[in-house]
């Protein structure tokens, strides 16, 4: 259980159920079944990240970043508040892996998360331009809104990928 630094001045780690909006570099480490939803505005060079844990809020409004159906409208609203035009918004989703075979319960929450986020993006008319989802292993991401919305993915096997 090693520690690590978070929320340094120019870099923010978005924890489970959290969200962040702005032009600073945003990271989300160790995404398993959770999904990092990134909405980028290349015109204003800003963006937003949510670390989504579950598909449906079923009316819970305490942490909108935690659920797919509340995180999508939340990020959209936050970006529009900062001057984004709805048509400049583009979404990327990363994560939704299946870390364990199924238990009696439903541990394959990853695929349900992927479906729910994709659906919510459709409902809110935000194009899903890139998707790096599914599989059976974890990923960490770094998103830089000012640099053309570059997203770097570190995979559990140590490989890096740039979107």
């Amino acid at each position: 259980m090693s520690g690590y630094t978070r929320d340094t001045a120019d870099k923010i780690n978005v924890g489970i159920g959290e969200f962040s909006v702005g032009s600073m570099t945003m990271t989300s480490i160790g995404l398993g079944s959770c999904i990092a939803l990134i909405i980028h505005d290349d015109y204003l060079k800003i963006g937003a990240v949510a670390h989504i844990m579950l598909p449906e809020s079923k009316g819970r409004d305490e942490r909108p970043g935690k659920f797919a159906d509340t995180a999508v409208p939340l990020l959209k609203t936050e970006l529009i508040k900062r001057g984004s035009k709805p048509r400049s918004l583009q979404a990327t989703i990363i994560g939704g892996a299946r870390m364990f075979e199924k238990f009696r319960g439903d541990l394959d929450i990853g695929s349900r998360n992927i479906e729910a986020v994709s659906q919510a993006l459709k409902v809110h008319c935000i194009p899903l331009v890139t998707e790096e989802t599914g599989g059976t292993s974890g990923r960490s991401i770094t998103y830089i809104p000012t640099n053309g919305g570059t997203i770097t993915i570190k995979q559990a096997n140590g490989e890096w990928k740039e979107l």
Partner: protein
Amino acid sequence: MDLNEKQLDALQEMGNIGASHAATSLSQMLMNEISMTVPEVKKIDIADISDYFGEEICAMVVFEIQGTIDPAGYIVYHVPLKSAIRMTNAMIGMQDEDREINEMDESALLEVGNIMVSHFLDATAELLGIVMLPSPPQLAIDMAHASFENIVAQVALDINEILLFSTELKESENGIQSTIVLLPEENTLTEILSLLDNLLEQVS
């Protein structure tokens, strides 16, 4: 859920009994002495889990707790990669530490985890006077945070703070370190606390 000091003490003692039994079984399997930390009970916001479980690759053997209380939560045997390899090596008398983790390590982890967790739950359940059994184990060798958040997603629909019970076990001859983590459902905690309350009343 807010816990008072008496409740925390009782939970810690319960964890201590479970972990001691698990440690004894580990020491028998490794044929070496195991030292154990005092069990910690921590309340963690789900957003801060990355302060405890990072990107490092580790093995997590996960069990669902079944029995009288259902669903009861999860118990996780967390072993850093290096320690997992050392553990297999120690059991079969191998030396090579720089090898890749393989199927043999995976079977060893499942087996060791199963035995330890069974002992942990047996002792805890006996104390509480209930039945607690581990489900068949599931193993992930991956980023610690990625595996753990999958388990948290099962218990944290309605809550944003989880209670983690963790006890670290150390074997110093081969340098094998591992942690047993108990992640109860919120209703389990309420039941356990009332069982512990009864127990304390009987004693006093």
